[in-house]
């Protein structure tokens, strides 16, 4: 992912799109903080702590759209 990326579209396994704001390097280097609609996504999809999220991307260049699917424990 590019350091200048500010917006990110997360596509979940239902096909819904969530527009998230990305901030690079908040805690330390090489970390991204994803905000925006993340909290609404967690609440509406009922994601609980402990579950896994598998993030995937089709192409190495374009990371504006990122696919993910969750697995519950």
């Amino acid at each position, binding site marked *: *992912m590019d350091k200048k990326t500010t917006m990110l*579209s997360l*596509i979940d*396994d*239902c*096909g*819904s*799109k969530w527009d998230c704001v990305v901030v690079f390097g*908040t*805690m330390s280097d*090489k*970390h*991204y*903080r*994803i*905000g925006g609609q*993340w*909290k*609404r996504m*967690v*609440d*509406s*999809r*009922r*994601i*609980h*702590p*402990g*579950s*896994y*999220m*598998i*993030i*995937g*991307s*089709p*192409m*190495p260049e374009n*990371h504006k*759209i990122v*696919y993910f*699917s*969750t697995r519950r424990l």
Partner: protein
Amino acid sequence: MIPNCFGSDFGDEIDRYDVLTDKNNEFKIRVERIDGSIFLTKGLAALRDFYDISLSAWFTLVFMGLGKFQIKKLRSRINRKIMIPLFVPPMRFAVEKSFFPQFNQHGFPASVYDLSYRHDPATFEIFYEKHITSFDVTFGFVVSRMSFTYVKCYLCLDLH
């Protein structure tokens, strides 16, 4: 699936996407047609997590015109009322429009099970796994090291 008799009468009013609404929230769902029948495919699974439907549920769809349906009388399988979760501002689910499946609107898929939405395995060529902690759930953001250095996941095979 919306039955064929409805599709012959009102099918021209339904475009590629239609909208299901309850009192506040809105779900945008992709429509695919096979042989005159209308299938609601992509985005419909968002109802499952949103209303916390575990087995199955009953609901009435009232056609409002121009591709809008209203969800009424939402009941679980054992006829218990399902509470609508309150979100302020109301939730509006959107679907990604760039993705199109292999078959087009007039083609036939190999089976109807191909219609149910799932991720294309090609979208998981580069992948990264994140363990969701309580920090990520309670606060409004997630901090992740998304470097995408892992190539070619084998896990994408058993995602379905």
